[in-house]
Every structure is written in structure tokens, then in C-alpha cells.
């Protein structure tokens, strides 16, 4: 009789552990997938910037410090992209965003540049990419929150650490007003 009771308890516990473990794996996988979405958009942004710099350079020949800054910021963001944590990447991306803003600010002083189709396309593409980054980021943060919450609530928190589950980092970009590519008026 006691053996049956013990076996039932062990069985129930085992089922509980399996279910919880699988749920954590699923949630963590969603975080990873969501991160991949952000990564794609950030890379797209990095790819657009050299073209933008080249196009603006053609018209604004005397602004080399601005171009140098954005090129350096881009290089730093690309470097951070290969290995760094979400927090470090966010920092690098924020630097890049503010450098990008100064490029657009410079561009505003050159009316001929505003009329160039390539420049229009590039700034539209960059705006769309910023938009996508912001939505991808939101989805990512939502998944991180779901994962972290279930990691930290009882009874999962008791043994999550034993299986090597760690809380994931949010991806926070700088203040929204600073994050947007300034609207270019044509």
C-alpha cells in the first residue's frame, strides 16, 4: 500500500518536472526567435548606413567629423552585433542612432540633396527599418517578460536554476523621441 502511494507521488512529481522544464524551454526558445528578428533589422540598418553616408558626402563635403562619427558608431554597433549582450548592443545602437541624427541634421542644410531620389529612398528605408526595430523589440521584450516571470514565480524558481535557466535581458533603446530618424521634409 505504502509503495503505491510513494510511486504515485514520485510519478506526479516527475510529470510536474517534465511539464515545467518543457514550458521553460519553449519560452526561452521564443525569446531566442524574437531576438533573431531584431538582429535581422539591426543588420539591415547597418547595411543602409554606408550608402547614406556616401550619398550625403557627395553634397556636404565639409562635414567630415559627422561622417567619421557615424562610421565609427556603425563599426562599434557591428562589432557589438557579433557577441555582445542585449544591453551592450542597445548601448552601441543608441550611439549609432544619435550619430545618424546628426547626419540627417546636416542633410537638412543641403536643399539639392533633399531632391535626390537615392537620398529619399534611403531615408524612407531607414525610417521603415527603425519602425521594424521598434516592433521587433517590443515583441522580444514581451517574450522576455513572459519567460522571466515564469522563471521567478513559485514553484518554478525553486529548481529553474538547477537546470541552468537564467533570466534574459530586455532590449531597451534610448528615449523614443531620440530614437526616431528625424522626419525629412521634401
Amino acid at each position, binding site marked *: 500500500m505504502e509503495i503505491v502511494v510513494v510511486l504515485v507521488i514520485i510519478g506526479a512529481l516527475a510529470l510536474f518536472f517534465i511539464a515545467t522544464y518543457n514550458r521553460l524551454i519553449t519560452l526561452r526558445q521564443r525569446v531566442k526567435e524574437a531576438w533573431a528578428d531584431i538582429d535581422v533589422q539591426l543588420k539591415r540598418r547597418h547595411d543602409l548606413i554606408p550608402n547614406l553616408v556616401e550619398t550625403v558626402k557627395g553634397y556636404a563635403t565639409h562635414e567630415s567629423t559627422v561622417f567619421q562619427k557615424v562610421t565609427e558608431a556603425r563599426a562599434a554597433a557591428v562589432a557589438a552585433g557579433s557577441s555582445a549582450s542585449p544591453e551592450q548592443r542597445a548601448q552601441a545602437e543608441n550611439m549609432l542612432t544619435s550619430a545618424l541624427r546628426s547626419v540627417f541634421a546636416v542633410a537638412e542644410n543641403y536643399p539639392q540633396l533633399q531632391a535626390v531620389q537615392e537620398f529619399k529612398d534611403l531615408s*524612407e528605408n531607414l525610417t*521603415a527599418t527603425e*519602425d521594424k526595430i521598434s516592433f521587433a523589440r517590443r515583441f522580444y521584450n514581451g517574450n522576455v*517578460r513572459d519567460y522571466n516571470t515564469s522563471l521567478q514565480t513559485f514553484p518554478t524558481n525553486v529548481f529553474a536554476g538547477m537546470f541552468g535557466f537564467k533570466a534574459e535581458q530586455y532590449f531597451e533603446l534610448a528615449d523614443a*523621441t531620440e530614437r526616431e530618424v528625424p522626419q525629412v521634409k521634401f
Partner: protein
Amino acid sequence: MSSVTTDSTPARLSIYDAAAANRWRTLLLIAVFTALIAVLAYFVGEYFAPGAGIAALPFAFAISTGSALVSYFAGDKLILAQSQARELGPSEEPQLRNIVEALALGLGIQSPKIYVIEDSAPNAFATGRDPQHASIAVTRGLLDKLDRTELEGVIAHELSHVGNRDIRVMVLVTVLVGTVALLADWMWRSFFWTQGGRRDRDRGGAGAIIAVIAIALAVLTPIIAGLIQLAVSRQREYLADASGALLTRYPPGLASALRKIAADKEPLEVANKATASLYIANPLKDAPAFFDHLFDTHPPIEERIKRLEAMD
């Protein structure tokens, strides 16, 4: 742009939960429709010849399985073709494409195929089997009459249908309701052909009861099927409004879009009774007031706007 500027992560409706609920709902729907068709077939079989009811059941199951399979694999294509929707080329309507792609990222789903219906009445719908096989169709009127935040609101509503797996349920219901209506119509005609012939032969009171039940079912089944469709579609419009607004973080965008769509009195010509419930707002503009909203395909737009305005 204003819709993407708030920087926080408030509570959201998880699309994973909604999707799981919809999987059960899909199974339940297929079961209910199969039962409906089986009951109809059984009594109509009994009506024509005692004992034939059982023989009619395999046909009933074949028909419901067949239409469920058709709707699963080809329902979206049938609906898009019937609505005369044309798929957008990669460089057409870049603003629309950017909105769809950005919002799809926000939901974590693959960006759906985009179709345009060349009609000046503003409206939109989403269809497909799952997010990997999804399409979203908007009318030319919607693109012309809405500004960016309004368009974002509408697209977010439609993408919520995709993310929630509503689209599969909606396609299934559309096709199954069509099948039931077709069957009932067909049986109704056979009643007239055989009228007076075999009804009273070799039968006592049981025969008369079966005859009454068979006729009543032939009348009621399409109405029941229609009511299931309406109940299903109205409920999920509110849900898609809510999760769409959570996605854009800007409920006034969708509210203002709904106001513009409601103000437009022109009916959408390519829509019909079967596809009407797919659209974001009733495309037929024909709500019959005397049925006390029982037969409306959509919740009243004023109520939807009121709920959206209460959100922020």
C-alpha cells in the same frame, strides 16, 4: 509614427493563448457542423424510406470531411479569387508593405502576402490557414481614404486575426456554412419532387413525426449554421480590435479608421453573404434592424469605437 513612440511593455494578450483556444474551437466547430449535417441527413433519409437514415450517414460524413479539407487547403484561395483580389508586386505600395512587415514583427509572425481589391469602398480582411499561409487584402478605397496611423490600426486588427489563428476558424466556418446551406437547399427541393408520393405509405404516427422533424431540420439547419457563424465572427472582432490596439499602442488610430469606414455608405461589390463576416466592417451595408442584431455579421461600429476609446 506616433503609434510607435511609447516605450514600455504593458500587459498584452498573448497570441499563443488565443491560438491554443482557437485550435480547440476549430475542432469543436468541425464536430458541431458534422453533427448538424449528420442529423439532417439521418432524418431526411428516414423521411424518404424508413431505415435509410443510417445509410445516409456515410454520405454526410464524406460531405463534411470533404468541405473541411477543401476549406483547410484552398479556402483562402477561393475567398481571394471570389473577392477579385490581386497580389501586390514587391515594389508596389511600399508604405503598406512597410506597415505590414513592421506590425508582423511586433506579433512575431511571418509577414503575410498582401492583396489589393480595386474598389473604392474602404475595407479589409485577412484569410489563410496559419501565419505561414496567410494573406491580407485591402481595398483601394482603404489606401486612398486612410492616413498612416489609421491604416496601421486596420492592419494591426487584421494581423491579430492571423496571429490568433482566427483566420482558419473563419475560413472553415465560411465554407461549412456554405455547404450546409447548399445541402439544405438541395433537400428542400427533393421534398417538393416527392411530395405526396411516399409520405403516407406503410407509415403510422412515427412516419408523420419523422416527416415533421425532417422538414423542420431542413428549414432550421441553415439558420443554426448562420447563427454559429455570426456568433463566432462578432466575438472575434472585439478581440482583434483589442489585440490590434495593443499592438500599435494607439487605439485612436483604429477608432478613427472605423469611423471613416462606417461613414462611407458605398457597399463593396465583390463581397457577398458568405464572405461578409471576414471583413473588418460589414461590407454589405445592409444590417437589418428588425432582427435586433441577431443577424448582424459585425458588432455595431459605435460600440467598437467606444471600447477602443475606453482603452487609453
